[in-house]
């Protein structure tokens, strides 16, 4: 089943075209990695899926992005509800300057959950799923900014899970982390696959091989190749993909 169906997606920042006629399907409950050299448009592409690009001044988007067969750029779409369903984790951990608990509870509170008992359950559940509960359950009242980078990033994943999304978009979620934290986050991502559709932008080929089911290679705003991760890395069909994954450029 397809989660996203993308057709002829083009995006301009002012007069600079960042995405060129991208068409691809993204399967539900799978992990799709987006790879490519810096500035190839993969992060921009990721942000079109929860409409974070709307906030950039002078952005222009054509083509269509269907999520669950509905056009997410249709005028009647409630962008905030869309972003609740399609969560995002950023490159740099971005815990808010509040307690661990309040960070995770921020989303549900925003969406109107007030009862403390209900919040307690949501927070614990999200932190369990993000594999930070055991480490942090005794530090719920502590400021989140005092945590280590790896803990902060997993807390941010817990925060994203707390609004009960269907999709997780991850923009280089481990690039600011040390190897041990990285492997913890990778384990976490793999374990989340059953319940979520995950897209992950990464510069780390090994990571793409390790965690993803399918891989899409981006270059200069175009999507060059998309297929099962194993196949793309072992038998790339396009010369440019091969050059990139064998480290000849980028």
């Amino acid at each position, binding site marked *: 089943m397809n989660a996203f169906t993308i057709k002829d997606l083009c995006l301009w920042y002012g007069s600079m075209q960042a995405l060129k006629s991208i068409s691809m399907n993204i399967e539900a409950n799978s992990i799709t990695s987006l790879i490519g050299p810096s500035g190839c448009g993969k992060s921009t592409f990721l942000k079109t899926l929860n409409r*974070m690009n709307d906030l950039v001044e002078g952005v222009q988007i054509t083509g269509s992005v269907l999520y669950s067969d509905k056009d997410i750029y249709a005028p009647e779409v409630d962008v905030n509800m869309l972003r609740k369903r399609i969560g995002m984790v950023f490159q740099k951990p971005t815990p808010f300057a509040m307690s661990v608990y309040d960070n995770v509870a921020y989303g549900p509170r925003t969406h109107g959950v007030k009862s403390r008992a209900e919040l307690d359950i949501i927070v614990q559940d999200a932190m369990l799923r993000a594999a930070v509960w055991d480490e942090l359950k005794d530090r719920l009242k502590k400021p989140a900014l005092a945590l280590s980078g790896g803990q902060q990033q997993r807390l941010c994943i817990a925060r994203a899970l707390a609004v009960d999304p269907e999709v997780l978009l991850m923009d280089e979620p481990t690039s600011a982390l040390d190897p041990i934290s990285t492997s913890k986050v990778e384990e976490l991502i793999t374990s989340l696959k059953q319940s979520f559709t995950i897209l992950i932008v990464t510069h780390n080929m090994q990571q793409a091989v390790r965690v993803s089911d399918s891989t899409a290679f981006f270059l200069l705003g175009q999507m060059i190749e998309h297929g099962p991760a194993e196949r793309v890395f072992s038998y790339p069909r396009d010369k440019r993909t091969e050059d990139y994954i064998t480290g000849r450029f980028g």
Partner: protein
Amino acid sequence: MNTRFKETAVKAVLLSFALAAVASVALITVFLVSSGLPAIGKIGLLEFIIGKRWASTAKDPGFGILPFILSSLYAATCSILIGSPIGLLCALYLSKAASKRTRAVISTLVDLLSGIPSVVFGLVGMMVLVPGIKQLFNLSDGSSLLSAIIVLSIMVLPTIVKVSTTALDAVPREYEDSSLALGASQVQTWLGVSIPAARNGIAASLVLGAGRAIGEAMAVMMVSGNAANMPSLFQSVRFLTTAVASEMSYSSGLQRQALFSIALVLYVFIMIMNMALSWLVKRSAS
């Protein structure tokens, strides 16, 4: 002459200029303390600080400055209470909601407001505010604490707006994006993430504003009637600053010394605020 000697010489010259500012502060402090203490000694600290009667030229003189202290605190607090929501919301609009053009226009006007001499505020207050308050509340005279509070509320706005805007601008974009990505609306994000993240800078803007309000003399003197009453909203009052300014020119003896003591008290208040400010700034940096 070798290069190293030149470098040292230039540094020494720069240092001496930097010390000019330090020397001024030191000089003012020494001057205020040495000329402010004798009267406090003669009157008695308690009598001076909590005495309610100020009659510096009477046959049986009274030198209690509690009315001035309370009036100053009252006016500064109220003007911050009125000015902070207006200033903060203005800053929020400028930093987050306004287009570049609108922001440029409004910022320029706010800058202009901060550049208006305080005597002009006083004049406008005298011509517009004082008669207005007199009519509105059916008073015999509109020169009152209320007039001073309103004038000060406007005078502290530029400080609050500018410093708060800077603090809100400095909130990392990723914080706000993270909130939006959770499905929060822009307004929810500003209130739930941007303002809390900028809270130390915002608090600093309020302290700076309060400092400005306490230190203001000319504008409040022109609209407050300058009678040494205990503070009451619709009555004429005198402040620490205006107490010094209004009597200095004809003062003599103990009266003159007491005016220096008032200036010392004012100075202590400003020092406390500056300490609070640098504490806030240090905290927001960490």
